[in-house]
């Protein structure tokens, strides 16, 4: 399901299936997309931040079109304890690889991979901080 911002319209709540993973997309060329994500984050229930939220930063291939400071984005990921993926949608190889990663994450969040739960993502994040 794709939405341009949160909260989702309440009219369709009863028709909506369970949400296993929320991916927030930030376009590095648009400051507006960062602001939009920041306001939308407030509408997400706290329980999602135990591994069921991730950030996808797009447009990273073009360094010269960058409107957002990378520091600001990384701080966002740290503040919400959620993984941050960087990709360039215009490159097919990267697009496919990123889609595969997201699918893998979704499988884990939906409980299809025995022995691994969404909470693993949170502990992975903490380990890289200690390094």
């Amino acid at each position, binding site marked *: 399901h794709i939405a341009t911002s949160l909260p989702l319209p309440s009219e369709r709540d009863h028709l909506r299936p369970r949400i296993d993973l929320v991916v927030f997309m930030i376009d590095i060329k648009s*400051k507006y997309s960062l602001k939009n994500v920041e306001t939308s984050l407030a509408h997400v229930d706290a329980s999602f931040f135990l591994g069921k939220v991730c950030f996808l930063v797009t447009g990273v291939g073009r360094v*010269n079109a*960058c*409107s957002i*400071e990378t*520091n600001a984005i990384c701080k966002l990921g740290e503040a919400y304890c959620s993984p941050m993926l960087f990709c360039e949608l215009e490159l097919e190889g990267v697009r496919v690889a990123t889609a595969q990663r997201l699918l893998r994450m979704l499988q884990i969040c939906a409980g299809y991979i025995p022995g691994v739960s969404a909470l693993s993502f949170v502990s992975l994040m903490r380990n890289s901080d200690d390094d």
Partner: protein
Amino acid sequence: EIVDPQKTAFLLRKAWTLYSVTPLYRFRRARLRDYARLLGAFIAAEKQKGLAVEVGVELDIKVAVSSLADLRGSEQDQAAVLVQLSLRSQASSRNSEDKLVWSGWFCSVYGDDLSENVPEDFTCLPLFLTHGAESYTSMVGRWFQKTFDCCFRRLAISPLNLSWMVAMWAGCKLDRAASAVELVFSVPRLSQPLDISYAIHPEDAKALWDTVQKTPGEITQEEVDVFMDCLYAHFHRHFRIHLSAAKLVKVSTAVASAHCDGIVKILHSQYLSGVLMLLTELAISQIQ
């Protein structure tokens, strides 16, 4: 500090195309006359090879290479080097002057980040600015690359850096009445390209910056963000358009103007050092 306004007058009010240059190997300041001669010969040879690609690009060229002692930031910086290409005058030598057709200059203003880390035989002049036909730039660039084993790259300026520039320059105090602060945005993904030009009265822009900046002489990313957010919010209030979703392509102030393709115009000598320092920093980060 760059002091002599007469020597730097040639810089002002010209559109300079920016390049980053890697350090020059075995560049000797004592040999500037030799270099001028060798570059002249190279250009003549290009003419022989029939490589004049543009109509109106003459190749009977006289080359002058000079050192601009005062054009630098700190003592660690190398003094700037100016290359000028003039058309040899065809008429009799009495009243005719050679016509300047192309200028390019290498400089470094507070480029210590780069010069600290290079071995002995290298000269660091990371910023290269050109004015004139692209064919000349290409020839001069090729000769320098061949002779000093360096590498030139066009220096593009990201929207992030452009917003730093407009915040910094809009806040500069100027004696005379200043021109408007203008930001030009390009709107992506439309069937026909759309440019939005946002002009602000310079006093309003300066007043806004003065309320945002906490420590004079210091600028932080947060302050630049607040400044830009105020401008975006004001525009949105009036026109219901989110400029933050568009691409900032050009900024223009009374101090200087800059375009994302890496073209700058310096309009005021008072802040020349500050502008060159920022451009040097951009050039260095592109090299590293």
